[in-house]
């Protein structure tokens, strides 16, 4: 399945791939918020975790709608479905490729954007850790939505409606972990986030495979 993983990573960085676009979107949304709120450093520091988490989820969604759709439209998905590997394994590879090209770069960029919010030094570790642990859940849950909407022409508009409500636990625990670390509390948000992420990543490939089979029969 590494063949599919490498291909998707390669495609994400070639012309027309979504990786750099998602990163630029993340940076611009996160940079706009301090401009809109004004120079209230105390307020900005409190909302940094939440805003960065929401921006990351939206940025990841940008490239998610094409996750299965482009392969469906050009017929590659038929060939992938007939390959010796299972559709479950193929879905897992696609989720991993999406996280490597979106979730991981977003996480790496987040401390820089934290600076824009005047995030105190004790918030950075929680911010980076929560995104590192939580973004796989965004890729996994988003992939399930992508597999269900892959044959819909304007699926990119429906996908957020399907996926965003399911991402609310990740946003609550992720942003909560940042707030807790600012207050010097230990509230277990990171643990809950890890549990949520783990369950999503394990279950999503099966749901994706079912969604793809359903659409190939359509």
């Amino acid at each position: 399945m590494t063949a599919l993983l490498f291909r998707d990573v390669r495609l994400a960085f070639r012309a027309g791939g979504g990786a750099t676009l998602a990163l630029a979107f993340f940076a611009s949304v996160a940079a706009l918020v301090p401009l809109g709120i004004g120079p209230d450093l105390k307020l900005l520091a409190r909302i940094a975790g939440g805003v960065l988490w929401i921006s990351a989820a939206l940025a990841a969604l940008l490239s998610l709608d094409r996750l299965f759709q482009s392969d469906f439209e050009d017929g590659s998905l038929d060939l992938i479905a007939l390959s010796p590997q299972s559709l479950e394994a193929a879905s897992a590879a696609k989720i991993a490729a999406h996280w490597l090209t979106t979730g991981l770069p977003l996480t790496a960029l987040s401390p820089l954007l934290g600076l824009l919010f005047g995030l105190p030094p004790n918030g950075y570790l929680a911010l980076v850790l929560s995104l590192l642990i939580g973004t796989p859940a965004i890729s996994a849950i988003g992939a399930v939505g992508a597999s269900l909407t892959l044959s819909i022409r304007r699926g990119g508009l429906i996908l957020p409606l399907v996926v965003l409500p399911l991402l609310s636990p990740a946003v609550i625990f992720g942003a909560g972990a940042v707030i807790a670390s600012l207050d010097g509390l230990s509230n277990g948000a990171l643990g809950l986030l890890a549990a949520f992420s783990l369950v999503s990543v394990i279950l999503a490939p099966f749901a994706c495979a079912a969604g793809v089979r359903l659409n190939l029969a359509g």
Partner: protein
Amino acid sequence: MGTALASLEVTDLACVRGDRALFRNLFFKVEPGRALVVEGPNGSGKTSLLRMLAGFLSPATGSIALRIGPDQVVDAEDRGKHIGWFGHQDGLKPQLTAKENLSFFAQLYSSNADAGATLEWAGLSRAADFPVQYLSAGQKKRLALARLKLSERPVWLLDEPFAALDVAGKKLVEQMLADHCATGSVAVVATHEAISIPSAKLALSGAPR
């Protein structure tokens, strides 16, 4: 090239799309080493039949039996693992080069065949390092043919393989079909064009009773 003996038997097959029956009471058997050409007007269900044989669509009624080797019936869920698919969409990534596209599928299908040699066979050695978006429609078809050859599957399903191909390209398709069938493998080809290899014909009328 598939080397296994294969045969495909279809019993009382029916295809319903929406509330319209495309075909029903379809019986045929493709013996080892034979090719079946499926003809019929647009919308008569040629592509649906191929997608059914590949296992993407479930038949409304009837059954499909694939036998590999002397008499080993393949489970319906495993049928796809024996199918070499050539759809009317090329399944190629425009951003990747011809060679990258082919190598990816060789890896995906765990094929030991040499991608470079297959490209040369398809007449694409000079285009190997071009991104596929710069290839012509005929060259893309040739690349898809090279991929089918690499798949090393005993059952080939081809949907309009001759579209966009030049005379030499059509010869190439007929030659590869002849070579494929010579090993005891089978092929089902949906096409509007005359085909010069020995084959049985199945005509879908597009108007079932």
